[in-house]
């Protein structure tokens, strides 16, 4: 043995020695022929396999033929009984991953090994089989696998369980059959078997919440041996906690004690997993957090970098939501700033920036300054981002932070880093007005020595916008003109534009700017000269102090409201001709989907239903689209277009959403329809809108869609008239009506969900730059104040965003962000209401201990006609709680009285809400003979529909529920359901509003799984009555009549029903004069 070591030492002195030096694939493949020798040399075979594996590992690939050849040769090695060689054979088979037709060669050998007496063979054979076989073989070996799972050798059991986890992805139904064995393995004494069994058992049951909950509650009480299994159990436990808290349980969290107990486990892995699980609990309280934070704090001073990293990363996340909880770790955190591991140091700094208070900012910045010089750019970017958010949090500290940013801006750094700093400074300038002057000067200094053209042009552009608005714009001119002298052509050109902006905006500077611009006329770059010439001529080149024309300003500096991509394509397509290129010829349509590109030339615009690219361009697009339709062109200026509201569930046959376009006197609904059935072409698609619950609206025009092919979105429009300038609200029910063009057109309709026009549709999100000024300028005379109790809410944050969403206004000054754990919040909103009325809202929220949220709403608006104000209030008032989809309309009663008792405080008390439902319009009126009455109405007045009622407790319960819903009178005692019957027919009668007699026949059936199906047949004197039950659907009835040969009148009734798997069932009922009824059921393929 010593001999070898010596030999090795000698070799060390030579150059790089490798046993694989000069290895070649071809040669190794030749060598692989030894596998075919009649007298196998196991050692040599092992070496060759090692070489093959080395090649594969280095990234060499074998061609299909080579791989097949090697594989077949390797299979011969199963003859050898050499233990070591067999292990290598297993390895290479897994690496070669043979194709399924080749696998057959080895399966019998592997199955033999699976039943071998040698444990290592059994374990490895299972793992190899798992890697190479598919589901067909699995059924054959299932029996052995079940045995292996409960094998007394832990290696075999683990191999079977781990393979089970892999197989579960491809053959879940087979693996699920093993749950008894897996359950037994969970109780195994071997630590790792328990871990693997737990993993597999959970994956088998993961969709069964109850089973997972049971698993967790039994195991948390018992003993789980390995730390890995303990970690798994913690993950499952927090899943159970999360799901149970969704059910709205209150009080103590189940299993929290278990998690807390794990913090005292002896394995660090488990302690950390538990601590992390606790910090990630939803709505975790500070009392729950404390023990976890304490444990993590201990980790911070560990000697192991991995522990420090894990702890600081978790604390960093906690700091985002619970900064106060982490402050106790600040001292440990500060010592980590100098950590060798820069990831840890960066995480420590960003955590400190999040938890720090205003007073500590200066000290912290001093520490960071030392640290910044020796970290990589990517970490610096993280720090810069953290500083930006710190600055927005403590605006008063902007001087310190801005200084810091300008210092690091002067230091060395790559583009991404510098860009992050510049972006941060720009954000700070935008959000903190006081920081503007100093921030702009810092940027000016930066461009004096900036190597990045992109950043220079960005800053010059920004200077052109912000610079002229400062108190002394002239001081920036020097910096800008220096660019014209010193920089490359791109920067020079943008410097010229910036100079021109100063000239156009600041009249006093104009003559001096002109002198500078004239010098640029001699620049040696075309673009620079062109720009200088353009500006000199348009702004007014005579050098006199005149105010620049507004149109010119708009032309030169206004935004180009064209999608740049469209402009580019148009310019590319333009061929030089007599006719000059016109911007007007460029399409304004935003191409949000690549596939619509080709169709852009066609008349019909497409792809509008897709998420639009930008808010302003959407409005443009909509405006253009609507004005192109002659019926709507007279409606005037489009006020607002809402975001699309989905009217269908996801994955239905037809996907429809609606965009509400608000005009002064009109409302246009744009229905974006998509047909998702490949074999159907829909024609004459219209939407039938029932506006009976929208009183102020009157239908004016509809624009049907000629055809709707598969997967190409199309639009149909319905226009309504409404009183001018009035924010009319209402609810609209919709039915999609169309002809299905398969072989012949069939008229069909499809029930859509209803939507509402709400007051927020009349509100434009328009921000104000300085809310306080705007608020003060309106003055208290224009103010209305009201208070509301919002009831218990999940969190203050949720309440604030709900109110903002309801009002549809623009949050100002970042006030939509609610600090975690704060008990009160003020939110500033602004908007423009229909009629161009500017509205400002100040919302003050407060939370009581019981999560009750109270809101004070102050509104100021330009117009004292309290329209807008009142509307805003009514929104806050009536709509906050009405979210139940079934509600036809909801009334909420606010009882207001003055509490004179102590201080005369106005108070209010909220009552529960109630609904007016359709059954309120139904009178219970019985009939003496149901059959006679039924027949007298005849099948012509009949509507039939079928419904799946889902699993029900009993048939009886289902019957009485339906009777209750319909609010009708049961006849002939049919409301009584015989016990244990599997089907039932119930007869109902009633009188609907408008004195319409309605008869209903309900047929119920129960399946074994308690699924109740119902067939509802309605006959009524009037079509209107059927609307009560005409609900969308999965069924359709078609009546045909004809005269058969021999002059026999035939009436045919076809009932179609669609079952869950799109299977269409058809019931054909034929009535003819010469025969009794025949009923047939057909189930087409």
């Amino acid at each position, binding site marked *: 043995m010593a001999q070898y070591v010596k030999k090795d030492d000698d070799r060390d002195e030579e150059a790089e020695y490798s046993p694989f030096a000069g290895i070649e694939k071809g040669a190794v493949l030749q060598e692989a022929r030894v596998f075919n020798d009649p007298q196998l040399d196991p050692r040599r075979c092992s070496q060759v396999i090692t070489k093959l*594996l080395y090649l594969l590992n280095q990234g060499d*690939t074998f061609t299909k033929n080579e791989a097949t050849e090697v594989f077949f040769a390797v299979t011969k090695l199963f003859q050898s009984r050499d233990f070591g060689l067999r292990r290598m054979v297993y390895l290479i088979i897994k690496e070669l991953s043979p194709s399924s037709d080749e696998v057959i060669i080895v399966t019998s050998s592997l199955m033999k090994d699976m039943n071998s007496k040698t444990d290592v063979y059994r374990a490895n054979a299972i793992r190899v089989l798992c890697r190479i076989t598919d589901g067909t073989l699995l059924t054959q070996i299932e029996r052995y696998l079940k045995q292996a799972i409960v094998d007394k050798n832990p290696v075999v059991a683990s191999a079977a369980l781990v393979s089970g986890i892999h197989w579960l992805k491809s053959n879940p139904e087979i693996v699920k059959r093993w749950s008894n064995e897996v359950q037994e393995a969970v109780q195994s004494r071997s630590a*790792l078997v328990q871990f693997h069994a737990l993993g597999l058992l959970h994956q088998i049951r993961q969709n069964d919440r109850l089973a997972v909950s049971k698993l967790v509650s039994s195991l948390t009480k018992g003993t789980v041996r390995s730390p890995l299994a303990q970690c798994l159990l913690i*993950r*499952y436990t927090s899943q159970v906690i999360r799901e149970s808290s969704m059910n709205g349980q209150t009080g103590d969290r189940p299993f929290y004690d278990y998690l807390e107990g794990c913090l005292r486990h002896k394995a660090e892995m488990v302690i950390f997993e538990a601590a992390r699980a606790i910090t990630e609990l939803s709505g975790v309280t500070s009392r729950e957090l404390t023990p976890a934070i304490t444990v993590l704090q201990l980790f911070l001073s560990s000697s192991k970098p991995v522990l420090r990293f894990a702890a600081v990363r978790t604390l960093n996340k906690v700091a985002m939501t619970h900064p106060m909880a982490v402050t106790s770790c600040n001292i440990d955190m500060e010592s980590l700033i100098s950590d060798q591991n820069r990831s840890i140091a960066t995480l420590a700094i960003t955590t400190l920036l999040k938890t720090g208070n205003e007073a500590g900012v200066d000290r912290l910045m001093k520490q960071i300054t030392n640290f910044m010089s020796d970290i990589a750019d990517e970490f610096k970017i993280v720090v810069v981002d953290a500083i930006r958010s710190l600055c927005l949090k403590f605006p008063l500290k902007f001087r310190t932070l801005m200084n810091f940013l300008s210092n690091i801006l002067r230091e060395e750094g790559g583009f991404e880093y510098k860009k992050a700093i510049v972006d941060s400074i720009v954000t700070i300038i935008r959000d903190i007005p006081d920081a503007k002057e100093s921030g702009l000067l810092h940027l000016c200094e930066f461009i004096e020595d900036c190597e990045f053209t992109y950043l220079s042009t960005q800053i010059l552009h920004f200077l052109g916008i912000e610079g002229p608005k400062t108190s002394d714009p002239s001081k920036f001119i020097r910096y800008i003109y220096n660019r014209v002298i010193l920089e490359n052509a791109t920067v020079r050109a943008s410097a010229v534009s910036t100079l021109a902006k100063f000239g156009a905006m600041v009249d006093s500077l104009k003559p001096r700017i002109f002198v500078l611009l004239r010098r640029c006329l001699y620049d040696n770059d075309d673009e620079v000269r062109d720009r200088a010439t353009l500006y000199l001529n348009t702004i007014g080149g005579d050098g006199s102090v005149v105010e620049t024309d507004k149109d010119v300003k708009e032309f030169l500096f206004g935004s180009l409201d064209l999608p740049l991509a469209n402009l580019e394509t148009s310019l590319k397509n333009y061929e030089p001709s007599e006719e000059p290129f016109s911007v007007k010829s460029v399409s304004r349509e935003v191409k949000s989907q690549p596939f619509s590109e080709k169709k852009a030339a066609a008349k019909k615009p497409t792809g509008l239903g897709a998420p639009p690219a930008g808010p302003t361009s959407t409005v443009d697009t909509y405006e253009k689209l609507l004005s192109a339709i002659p019926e709507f062109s007279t409606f005037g200026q489009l006020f607002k277009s809402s975001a699309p509201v989905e009217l269908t569930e996801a994955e239905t046959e037809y996907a429809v959403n609606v965009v509400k376009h608000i005009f002064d006197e009109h409302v246009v609904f744009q229905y974006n329809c998509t047909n998702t059935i490949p074999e159907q072409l829909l024609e004459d698609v219209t939407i039938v809108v029932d506006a009976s619950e929208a009183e102020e609206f009157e239908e004016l025009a509809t624009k049907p869609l000629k055809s709707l092919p598969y997967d190409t979105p199309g639009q149909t429009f319905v226009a309504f008239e409404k009183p001018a300038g009035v924010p009319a609200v209402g609810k609209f029910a919709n039915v999609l009506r169309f002809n299905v063009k398969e072989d012949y057109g069939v008229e069909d309709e499809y029930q859509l969900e209803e939507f509402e026009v709400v007051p927020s549709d009349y509100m434009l999100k328009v921000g104000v730059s300085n809310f306080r000024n705007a608020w003060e300028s309106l003055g208290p005379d224009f103010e209305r104040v009201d208070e509301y109790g919002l009831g218990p809410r999940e969190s203050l944050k949720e309440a604030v965003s709900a109110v903002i969403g309801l009002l549809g206004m623009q949050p100002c000054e970042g006030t939509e962000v609610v600090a975690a754990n704060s008990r009160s919040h003020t939110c500033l909103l602004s908007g423009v209401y229909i009629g161009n009325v500017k509205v400002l809202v100040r919302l003050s929220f407060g939370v009581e201990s019981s999560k009750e949220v109270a809101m004070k709403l102050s509104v100021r608006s330009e117009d004292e006609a309290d329209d807008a104000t009142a509307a805003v209030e009514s929104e806050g008032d009536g709509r906050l709680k009405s979210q139940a989809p079934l509600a036809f309309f909801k009334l909420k009663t606010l009882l207001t009285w003055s509490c004179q008792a102590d201080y005369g405080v106005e108070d209010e008390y909220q009552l529960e809400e109630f609904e007016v439902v359709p059954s309120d319009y139904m009178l219970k009126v019985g009939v003496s003979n149901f059959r006679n009455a039924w027949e007298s109405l005849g099948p012509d007045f009949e509507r039939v529909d079928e419904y799946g009622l889902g699993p029900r407790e009993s048939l009886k319960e289902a019957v009485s529920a339906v009777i209750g819903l319909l609010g009708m009178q049961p006849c002939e005692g049919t409301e009584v359901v015989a016990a244990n019957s599997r089907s039932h027919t119930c007869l109902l009668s009633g009188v609907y509003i408008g004195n319409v007699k309605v008869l209903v026949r309900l047929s119920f059936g129960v399946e074994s799984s308690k699924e109740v199906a119902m067939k509802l047949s309605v006959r009524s004197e009037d079509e209107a009555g059927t609307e009560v039950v005409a609900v969308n659907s999965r069924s359709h009835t078609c009546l045909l009549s004809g005269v058969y040969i021999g002059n026999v009148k035939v009436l045919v009734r076809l009932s179609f029903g669609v079952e869950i798997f799109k299977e269409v069932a058809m019931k054909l009922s034929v009535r003819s004069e010469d025969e009794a009824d025949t009923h047939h059921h057909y189930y087409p393929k």
Partner: protein
Amino acid sequence: MESCPSVKNILLLDSEGCRVAVKYYSDDWPTNSAKEAFEKSVFTKTQKTNARTEAEIAMFENNIVIYKFAQDLHFFVTGGDDENELIISTVLQGFFDAVGLLLRGNVDKKEALENLDLILLCLDEIVDGGIILETDANVIAGKVASHSVDSGAPLSEQTISQALATAREHLTRSLLNV
């Protein structure tokens, strides 16, 4: 996070960042060039750090990489960024110590290449398709070293070190004689 802890790859590189043995368990790097690019970036970013006494940690492209160096060998284990760092670290430690045992303390590139079959078997015993099989270095080394035991002889009659010795002897001899 409800799933089993999983390992995305295990890398063993030399002091120039070249592969000694690597094993990928995830589809995040579908091609060999993607794998090599990942190895290169991980290697260059960690090469200057001191990860000889304690395992170090870094983040790359939303992955946690835990690494440790010995002589001219660099050991890496990668996991997803929401994985428990300490679990990944346990895997690395198991791999590192098992290789140490298998190479009998001579943990360097030459020794590793000469015993590449042991290293590959070692990787095979630690993780199967991303799922951790075993993290105890002694058990891993024991399983790998049972390699050269004749199928007739019962395992229990050989100690781990005996098994290791025979394994190594056979292999060095046979490789040197090529």
